[in-house]
């Protein structure tokens, strides 16, 4: 197991290195001078050159990369001129909101997808299964931001049940229990928006898993030996059908975090996604690189985690390669 883990980590390292080089090249290619807003417009050209020299503006590309990478390893992702704060600090201040949103979406996904997927697996090819399948197809076909706007139109603008944007009601200053309720009310619509596609994906996997395992020999044998349907379902079928779900969920996490960009934009949710969009609009190189690297690292780590968890629940994988 330890050897398997070690090999996975060793494969992950060059991937991270490659991503960082490509991301760096990409961001440095951006047109425009990000230091314009930093320098006093009345400064003489000599002063400007001196200042730009000091921040490393004239360094060759590879020197810039090494400087950046060296600092990044120690957690220093540079300084955002636009926000006047270290990148790691800005990212850290926003990441909580995104985790809250993505976490709620994941919880909703599981709450809905588990019963629905199991039901579909047990009743495969019946009328009700077909109806749910068609609904899944529709859910997979709606752009997240359009779904978000529809929900805002219905529940915020027309019915006035829920707020349409932000995390808390501005000026309400609610604290304690009232504060939690306030955040929860703001959370419902964006979390539902983000969860919809994932519900369709996860229930689809469960449906296939459950119905296929029901047809396997060991299940038939259990029935032949007189086991009760409930026992077989909970004992053997779900245990095996849930295995691919572990992988899918750990791989959904990076997708949820980076995919929250559109949802966060539509609902003015101050998380990583919206920060990312703002960084592009402000040409904030350092911040942009920090965010992309942050998301890429999470993707790599989640992949690693998925492999390791899978190797634990299914030992065959460890020797497979």
């Amino acid at each position, binding site marked *: 197991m330890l050897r398997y883990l070690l090999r*996975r980590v060793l494969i992950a390292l060059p991937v991270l290195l*490659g991503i960082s080089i490509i991301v760096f090249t990409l961001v440095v290619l951006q047109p425009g001078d990000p230091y314009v807003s930093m320098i006093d417009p009345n400064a003489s050209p000599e002063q400007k050159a001196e200042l730009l020299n000091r921040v490393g503006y004239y360094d060759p590309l590879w020197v810039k990369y090494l400087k950046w990478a060296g600092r990044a390893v120690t957690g220093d992702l540079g300084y955002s001129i636009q926000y006047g704060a270290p990148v790691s600090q800005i990212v850290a201040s926003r990441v909580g909101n995104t985790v809250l949103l993505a976490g709620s979406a994941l919880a909703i996904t599981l709450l809905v997808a588990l019963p629905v997927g199991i039901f579909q697996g047990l009743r495969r090819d019946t009328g009700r299964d077909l109806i749910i399948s068609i609904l899944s197809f529709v859910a997979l076909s709606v752009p997240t931001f359009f779904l978000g706007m529809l929900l805002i139109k219905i529940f915020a*603008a027309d019915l006035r049940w829920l707020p349409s944007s932000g995390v808390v009601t501005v000026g309400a200053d609610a604290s304690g229990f009232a504060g939690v309720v306030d955040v929860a009310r703001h959370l419902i619509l964006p979390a539902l928006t983000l969860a919809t596609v994932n519900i369709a994906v996860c229930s689809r996997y469960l449906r*296939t898993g459950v*119905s296929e395992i029901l047809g396997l020999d060991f299940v038939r044998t259990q029935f032949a030996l007189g086991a009760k349907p409930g026992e077989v379902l909970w004992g053997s079928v779900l245990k095996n059908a849930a295995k691919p779900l572990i992988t899918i969920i750990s791989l959904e996490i990076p997708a949820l975090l980076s995919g929250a960009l559109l949802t966060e934009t539509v609902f003015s949710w101050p998380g990583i996604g919206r920060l*990312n969009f703002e960084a592009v609009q402000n040409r904030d190189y350092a911040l942009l690189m920090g*965010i*992309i690297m942050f998301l890429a690292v999470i993707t790599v780590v989640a992949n690693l985690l998925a492999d390791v968890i899978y190797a634990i629940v299914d030992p065959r994988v460890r020797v497979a390669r």
Partner: protein
Amino acid sequence: MSTTDTTPRVWHRLLRQPLFVTGASILAVIIAAALAAPLLTSFGPNEIDLAHLEAPPGNGHLLGTDALGRDVFSRLLHGGRISVLVGIAAVLLQVIIGVSVGAAAGYFGGRIDTVLMRFTEIVMCFPFYAIAITLAALFGASVWNVILIIGILNWTGLARLVRAELLSLREREYVLAARAVGARPLRVIGTHLLRNAYGPILVNATLAVAGGILAEAALSFLGLGVAQPDPSWGNMLTAAQSMRVLSSEWWLWIPPGAAIVLMVLAINLVGEALATTLAPRGGALLRDLQPRRALSANPIPRLSNRKRVTP
């Protein structure tokens, strides 16, 4: 094993599937409407009617007008042309890159395979929207840049698929025979290997068109895709970023949104039908949504495909 003699049978089987017929009919109607735009509406997509600004449906404007007095129905039809063009062109690019990389890796194996697949893994770890909006800001917003961005970032699934298919095909006897008589790699790959792997490739490419249309819509909605005054379904939706339009001017944003949903749904239906006909191992959705196992070559263990025994 040649494709020609199986094609009619494939068509027959497809036409018997309600999923395929429904999806293909919707597709045909949308594409025909987009192509016949000038016949269906008397307004040009950029024609300004100063007498009717942000007018609700009526006065000859089937779906009303936008803030500049342009006919929404006309922009919807012309926007369809651009959205569908972006979806298809981006997938062509994906197919070119993905099939080349996958075929080279799968056919040659060894060090070439390692290098190409490691590179594929790197691209797979890119957070799509983060990189896409960075690229869009870098190159500017235009139809061709959107196609390039979507194509360049989304070929990895196809590459891995083609590689896996080729790995399983390349030791077949007819391939060995072809190589033994001196056929060159390109010829072996083109005439023997890819031709026998066309089913999964076609399914994957079909579903990718849906993905491309969704990505175009998202980028254009953010103002980083198809730029005004060209209409696209995505950039028509940008209008709804204003709360006033969102809550009280439905004709500006519901029609393009509904068009995207219909189009993507139709493509997904066709893809699902193609998958069950051409590559009958699990549905298209399963295949397409195969999680990104970026760092691992272990596939999710496939479950047996036997018929279910009713308990």
